[in-house]
Every structure is written in C-alpha cells, then in structure tokens.
C-alpha cells in the first residue's frame, strides 16, 4: 500500500492532488462526471463579498501551449456560496478549500469572518493577485508590504488555516513568500497566472475584452516550477505547487521541487479526468520507484 496522504498546515489530504481555483467552479459540474471525493481537495472559484458577473466576452484565448483568461472573478458571492455551494460540497469526503479575493483588505476580512462561522471548510486560500484599489490598483501580491498586511488581517480572524496564493508577476517571489509567512500564512500556494495578451492583427484590437489576461497551462510550467523550487527552499511552511500541471509526471516535478501538494487548473478543461489520472500516475511513479509514501519525494530533487 502506497501512502498518498500529505499534511498541509494541519489539514490531512488523502492525496496531494487538488483542483485549482477558477478551474473547478464549485464542484457541481465535475461531480456529475466522477466521484469528486477521490480528489485530495478542491479549491473553489475565488469568492468576493458581493457576487460578480466578471468581464464581458471574449474572456479567453488560446495561445501556444497555454491560454489567457480574463474571467474577471465571476462568482456567486460569499452569501450564496455559504448557503448553496458549501452544503453541496460538504457531501463529499474531500478537503474543501475556499478561495477569497478582494480589492480592499476590508473585503478579505469580512469574508474571513463569515467563513469562520462555517463548518466543512478545510482551509482558506487567499488569492492576493487582485488589484488593491486602496493602493492604486496594483496587486496585493505584487509587493511585500501589502501582501503581508492582508494575510495578517485574514489570519487574525480565520478559524481555518490560511494559504496565501502568490502571484508570479513579481521581481522576487521569495521576498513575498517570506512576508506572508512572517504574517502568519500557514501554507503558500503558487503560481497564479502570468499577465499576457494577444492581439487580433486583422481587427487590430485585443482578443480579450479586458485587453490583458492571465496565462496558464503547459507554457508556464517551467516558470512555475522554478518559483516553487525557490519558495519551497526558503520558507518552512508547506508549499502547494501549480502552473501547467497536465500529467502525473508534471506533478512529480513539482513535488520533487518541494511542493507538498499540487493544484491542477487548466488541465481540468482539456480533460475532466485529468486530476484522477494524475493521482493514479503518481501512485504508479511511486510504485516504480519503490517509495512507500508520497511524502518521501517532497523536495527530493538533487541540488548539485
């Protein structure tokens, strides 16, 4: 028996494969296709306090080995999530991680307080890649200071462990990681999408209504892996890696680099069964390498 379970900030995951925020909605659609209890965990679409429609179409564009999205945080809002989505998710035996996003520290705080009253939430993932309207629209996650501050405020109210999800669009991700950990983050997840765009040369206009979007998928995997490696080698808290993970072999790369778990995003679009195939492939890899526990490969890439 190979032990696939891992521990993230006190939360036991039956396996290290989670679905990434914004790439699984609130689980309902996938639950019609397979038993989502088989997943290590689910990260919900990022919630805002009030519901959001998000940007008008076109919201996505395909790129070479990747895609851009400018969904604009379409979500049902914290209330509807708590009353309609959470009870649904509670039926499943998988870790439910709630992603929250806001343009003001205040918003994160209010959501954390609401979530503190709820059962069945394994952890909160704070998506700090949103424009911080109080400080001129730059991402919270772009600078050490605001990143640390918003995590500290969340942490103060949170009843559940807090995972800080980092943006890759920074000069020194290790600095940001240290800052959120110093401010209480129980774990770190990375990476969110890279900023990118595509232009329609016939229409001479941007292909996305929002001009720029976030790049995800296999194209960004090398960038994500380098960042995960650097962060996991610096901070003491567990790291959840993501960015272009399509197969078990990709997931193994992230775990060897130091991730204690992985999130699968874009791959869920291409193949709904991708997360399950990754779990199975992970087990096969461990068997082939005579490993008894997935924990034994975390961070095991040779450094020389």
């Amino acid at each position, binding site marked *: 028996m190979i032990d696939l379970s891992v521990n993230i900030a006190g939360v036991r995951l039956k396996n290290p494969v989670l679905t990434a925020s914004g790439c699984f909605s609130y689980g309902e659609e996938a639950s019609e296709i397979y038993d989502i209890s088989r997943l290590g965990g689910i990260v919900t679409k990022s919630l805002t306090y009030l519901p959001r429609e998000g940007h008008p179409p076109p919201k996505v564009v395909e790129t070479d080995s990747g895609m851009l999205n400018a*969904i604009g945080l379409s979500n049902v809002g914290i209330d509807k999530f708590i009353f309609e989505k959470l009870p649904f998710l509670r039926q499943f035996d998988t870790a439910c991680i709630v992603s929250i996003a806001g343009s003001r520290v205040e918003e994160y705080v209010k959501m954390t307080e609401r979530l503190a009253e709820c059962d069945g939430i394994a952890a909160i993932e704070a998506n700090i890649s949103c424009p911080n309207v109080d400080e001129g629209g730059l991402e919270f996650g772009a600078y050490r200071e605001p990143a640390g501050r918003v995590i500290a405020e969340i942490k103060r109210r949170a009843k559940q462990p807090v995972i800080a999800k980092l943006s890759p669009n920074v000069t020194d991700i290790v600095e940001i990681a240290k800052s959120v950990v110093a401010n209480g983050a129980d774990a770190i997840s990375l990476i969110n999408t890279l900023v990118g765009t595509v232009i329609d040369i016939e229409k001479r206009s941007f292909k996305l209504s929002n001009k720029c979007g976030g790049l995800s998928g296999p194209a960004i995997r090398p960038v994500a892996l380098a960042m995960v490696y650097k962060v996991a080698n610096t901070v003491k808290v567990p790291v959840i890696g993501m960015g272009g993970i399509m197969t078990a072999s990709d997931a193994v790369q992230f775990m060897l680099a130091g991730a204690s778990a992985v999130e699968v995003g874009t791959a869920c679009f291409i193949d709904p069964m991708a997360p399950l195939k990754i779990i199975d492939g992970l087990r096969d890899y461990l068997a082939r390498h005579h490993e008894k526990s997935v924990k034994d490969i975390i961070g095991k890439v040779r450094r020389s």
Partner: protein
Amino acid sequence: MFDAGDIATAAKPGQFIQVKTSDDCFPLWPRPFSIHDADPVTAHLTIMFRIYGSGTAQMAARRPGELMHLFGPLGNGFPAVDGNLDVILAAGGIGLPPLYFLAKDAVEKGLSPHKMTFIAGAKSKLELLNEARLFELGLRPVICTDDGTAGRRGTVVDVLEQELAPRQKVTVYACGPNAMLREVDLLLARGNLSGFLSLEALMPCGYGICSGCAVRVHPPADRGPTDDRCDYHLKRVCIEGPVFSAGEVMWD
C-alpha cells in the same frame, strides 16, 4: 463518425461533444462539434465539420480506426419540437448538423416532415453542406446562398423573413454564426415570435467550470447587487446553452 459508446446513447439534438484533436498540447483546447446524428444501437456518433484552423485540420488528417478523445454529450440541447406549431429550422453554414438531428428526432417522434420548413444556407455553393440527408427525412429544404450560386439568392435571414411573413404561430430553431443568430433574434423580436438559437463560443472546457464561453444575457430581475455593477448577466454557452431562447441574449 465515431464509435462513441455512451455518448451516442445519451445524445439529444442540439447537444455537442468536445473533441481533443491532438495528443499533445497544440492546440491546447478540445474543439466543440454539434452532434449531427447518433445511433443508440450501433453507438455510432456522427459529426460534420468544416476545416477551419489547426484543430479541424488535424481532425481531417486522422485515418479511420484511430482513437480520439471525445467528451460528451454536452449542453442543454433544443427543446423538443412542438407539433402544434409551425416550425422553421434555419441553418447557416455549419449550423446544419444539429438541426438535421433535431428534424430527424422530430420525424422519428411522429411529426410530419411537412410541418417543418428547413432553410439551409451558406455564403456560396462551395460552402453549402450536403443536404441529401434532409431529403431522406422527407423534408424539402429551402436552399439559399448569399451570392446566388445555388438555391435562392440571399442570406438565411432573408429567406427566414420571407418564410415568416405568411405565418402567425411559428417556432424558429436557428443555428449558425453568431452574426446570423443576432439577425434572427432581431427578426423574431420584431414579429414577437418564439424561437431557439444555438450559439457559438470558444470553449476551453465545455462543461461549465471555466466561464470562458460566457455570453451576455439580460440580468434576471431578482439578481440583487453585484460587486462589478454590470448591466449584463453572464451565462455559460456550454452548460446553460448552447441553445438560448429568442430574446435572451444581449448582442453586442
């Protein structure tokens, strides 16, 4: 045509499948195709496609017997045809496959082919899809081309307008490029007629998890406040569509 197991058994007219055209990451997304025909007994599933870009080119290069990754059936599909009303099916270009399936289903359920008017149009003769199967159903399709190289000269919308004129109670089922559907929608609004439109959209996932395919619709009256104060509501074409009721969509 695919050996498609359960997909063929479950398929309803207006639904679609996602086809992964390559085994690697180029192109990344699967491609959506309407179900053109499905035989629950043989598990054969038929799609009809035009070579458009790299995904469809890859599909065309496949040889019989090769395996492809299919996923479906997806989408809401058309509501069953109401035999009490006159029915017009309006297919622009590659909109024909699902409407054929709808017509066939209606005929199989006992509707007389004479109650259905089937308009099949394209830019020109070369782009017209093979309509032989429509005749086999007993339909007498009205063929039209924008340039008059085959059938009536005029767009599907032009012909639809002519066909609508003498009628009072009629339901329109339309599928084609969004630009055509927009025109059809305006036409129906003017005549206060009911109808169903099957939309196109880019579809990263096809089953509702990414929001990438969303289309603007009129917000429901009871929506309440939103963070981004949008004057529109978004619906996902893949799962809340691809079929929308006339008047539902907010066109650009």
